[in-house]
């Protein structure tokens, strides 16, 4: 008589990739145990929709990808408010930060990416707000007065999505930066000014001619922040945010023996160098045969697709991510910027 072992799929991260993976894992393996691990207190939310926090009085329940009942119905356990301190692939074990081990048979790393702050600005990081979670977004929303001023360092596509939402809702936005503008798009120099002009036309003030010398805390009265530029100009802001791309969140993988460059290195089937570990979303670098290198694939559609493919392959399929994609930044007929990065919902 043969015994069938029940799989225990553990997913580190409960963002779009992790959530999508859990959904497909359950569809394909109804008897398995599925556990998601998340540092946040909330169930999976769609972080791409966080800019809506400025245009609605909705609370966090409106940002949930699925209502709580979904997890009960699907028998998906979500360990929240905890994070993985390290992974032991040899024993197929995670250690949670509150000193509780968690065993797995197959592991998906979908821990996403945190904000990246350039080295030169790192000393001011405590004065730079975060916007990656609901709690962080709500804090920014609470800190920003009506028609208040937000200074955005960098100007990646996540930030520009927020910027366009803010200006639509009557806020003032200044983007300062050159190096990370339009990240992760590779915008050629001749197109750059054209897109910057479009941003200006959308009401976003873009400053690419200056660098930042320092950021200072405001006094008791607003504004809360003073940004000193390298031309001695001082810009006052209610909130300062950094949008200079993403830094994969995988400190817990140190010493795990899995190949890592900037992200977890995976093949187009999203499997890592450990046969029981997969990765999906902003945390993984996928081998691109076309470019002959590992590279990141960002954006809601990509991340969602990765969650699905990882789930398929963890349950015995052999599917690959399409590593040839249209990643062009475009201007719409109405004169606004659009990007495949912003396609979600």
């Amino acid at each position, binding site marked *: 008589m043969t015994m069938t072992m029940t799989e225990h799929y553990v997913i580190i991260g409960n963002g779009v990739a992790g959530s999508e993976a859990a959904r497909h894992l359950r569809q394909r393996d109804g008897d398995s145990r599925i556990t998601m691990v998340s540092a946040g207190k909330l169930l999976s939310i769609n972080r791409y929709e966080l800019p809506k926090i400025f245009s609605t009085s909705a609370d966090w329940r409106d940002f949930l990808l699925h209502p709580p009942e979904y997890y009960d119905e699907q028998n998906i356990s979500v360990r929240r408010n905890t994070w993985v301190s390290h992974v032991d692939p040899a024993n197929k074990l995670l250690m949670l930060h*509150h*000193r509780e081990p968690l065993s797995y048979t197959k592991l998906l790393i979908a821990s996403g990416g945190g904000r990246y702050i350039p080295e030169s600005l790192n000393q001011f990081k405590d004065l730079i707000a975060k916007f990656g979670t609901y*709690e962080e977004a709500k*804090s920014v929303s609470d800190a920003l007065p009506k028609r208040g001023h937000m200074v955005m360092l960098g100007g990646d596509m996540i930030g520009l999505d927020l910027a366009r939402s803010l200006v639509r809702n009557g806020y003032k936005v200044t983007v300062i930066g050159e190096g990370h503008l339009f990240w992760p798009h590779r915008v050629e120099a001749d197109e750059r000014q054209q897109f910057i002009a479009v941003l200006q036309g959308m009401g976003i003030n873009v400053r690419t001619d200056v660098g930042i010398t320092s950021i200072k805390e405001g006094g008791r009265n607003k504004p809360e922040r003073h940004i000193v530029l390298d031309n001695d100009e001082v810009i006052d802001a209610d909130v300062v945010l950094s949008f200079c791309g993403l830094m994969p969140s995988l400190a817990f993988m140190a010493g795990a023996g899995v190949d890592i460059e900037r992200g977890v290195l995976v093949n187009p089937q999203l499997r890592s160098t450990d046969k029981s570990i997969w990765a999906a979303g902003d945390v993984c670098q996928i081998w691109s045969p076309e470019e002959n290198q590992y590279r990141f694939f960002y954006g809601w559609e990509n991340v969602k697709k990765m969650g699905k493919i990882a789930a398929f392959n963890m349950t015995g399929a052999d599917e690959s991510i399409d590593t040839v994609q249209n990643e062009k930044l475009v201007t719409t007929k109405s004169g606004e910027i659009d990007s495949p990065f912003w396609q979600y919902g």
Partner: protein
Amino acid sequence: MARTAKQRTDIQIAICGSAGDGTIAAGDILKQAMAKAGYNVIAFDVYPPEIRGFGKCIARARITSEQVYSLKSESDCLISLNDSHAIPHVSEVCKFGTVIYEDTPVSTVEEGAHVSSHLAPAHLPYGVAFREISERITSSARSRNIVAVGYLAGLYDMPADVFHEVISGKFASKSKELADSVRAAFDAGFQAGVDTFRLHFDRMGAAGGRGKQTDLVMMSGNAAIVRGCLDAGIDTFFGYPITPATTIMEMLAREMPKRGGRLLQTEDEISAIAATIGAGYTGARAATATSGPGLALMAEMMGLGAMAEVPAVAFVSQRGGPSTGMPTKTEQSDLNLAVFGVAGDGQRIVLAPTNVEGCYKCAGKAFEMAEAFQTPVIVLLDLYLSNRYEAVQLPVKNPFAENCSKAPRKNASPAEYSRYKLTSDGVSPRAIPGETGRMHTVTGLEHDERGKPSDQPRIHHAMSGKRHQKLLPALKHPGITISKRFGDKGAVDVGVLGWGSTFGEILEAMIEARKEGIRCAAMKVVMLSPLPVGPVKAFMDDCNEVLVPELNYEAQFASLVTGATGRSVHRLNRVRGTPMSVGEILDQIRHLAGQSGKIAAE
């Protein structure tokens, strides 16, 4: 799904830990502080039979801006001070309720042994480094419970000043260093709570519905009994410790000597009731306190009290039975013993308060009635009521009469004095031993009017009638509610008849049923013996269906009522050792209302 923060404050907190974790102490600080802040508070502590060790302790407190009558079946917040004990109670947390737990265990826990692994998707997790904070602030992990209370207060916007007041009061007799250390632990926890991003929707302001109160007292049922005894001028108390009545004796032992009273711990319950009756015979206001097993031992002496017509008061707090049963679990299964537990036709007065304020009133009135009707009086509580805390406002003026005895006529000759004279109201003039010219015999034997033993049929019949008839005016004794109807007036679909501690849940269920459009009323019966048959019958006449929920297996009150009225009732009985849930009663009301509707339609 509610879209806005609740306007009405109605939050139930459960703190769960192991004996020695300071769970009950933490709950005590919470309830005292919130009562000071002007909120209504109902609290109930569950603790293990072991004095110290590994047993589970749970302190529950319902904090509301409006009057409520019972604990909720689900808590809005659970604080775990011990995960293995708290895990079974996670399922009692409501949707979008919070679970607060230790985030930095001192050692590795087994997979699945941390409380966070048992949270439902709709729960909100708040992990806190209780131990680390406590060690950082007080150089010891012992104040984890205080840090937890502080965190809770900060997280729910509770006013810190009332907690400071309570902590200062609680540690007033300790060293200043200790009091300062506890306060610092609270403040550190409070700040951590304030700094936490809140996802839950419950908030509390600086003051409850009544504003900050200084005249509200947070009091347990047993403490209210003690206060009632003291205000009624108790002279002597004899007792033998037994859960859940022990704290009555403990509190009286502290308070009575200050007022010239005397308290003696006897060798057993038989001695306790014997001494109580002896003291009552001499004219003292005397009482004892026990639980079901103790009352069983007291049965014979209670008969003597009835036969000899001696005033005595026994406070009986019920627990799970029979025999040793479940000493730390609640039950209402000693009604038959209290009402009928005696040899022969030995009727006595039995009062069963339904809330903490009722405990105070019944305690004081029990002494009045014992004197007025020359009989033992039993005040029947249960563990849920003995240990339940409520914010109560006690009367400024002492509501209890000093002397209710019917004394002999002053100028009556010795030859005329008959201790057991047959009178129109059945109450005979009572002389205290030592009064000149009032010599008489007191015996457990049947006796004539002068107390002389007699087994003549005529005398036994007359005296039996006297001993019963004299108690009926107790139904009209001033200043005490014997029975009371609540809810819809006139004809109703469902009437709920209740007694003792369960009545709070009955009242809540009735209120909910009315909100659902069910015509519903509830009646509490405080005097179980003699039973107020008239009002009970009148209530039952108004009800298409009558439901009697109670915490016993044998439906003891239901049987008492059906026996006295000849009417049938629907019985709802639970013996889980826990209070009955509002939901269970409400479900039955809905069910019966449906039946009632069908009958009406037919």
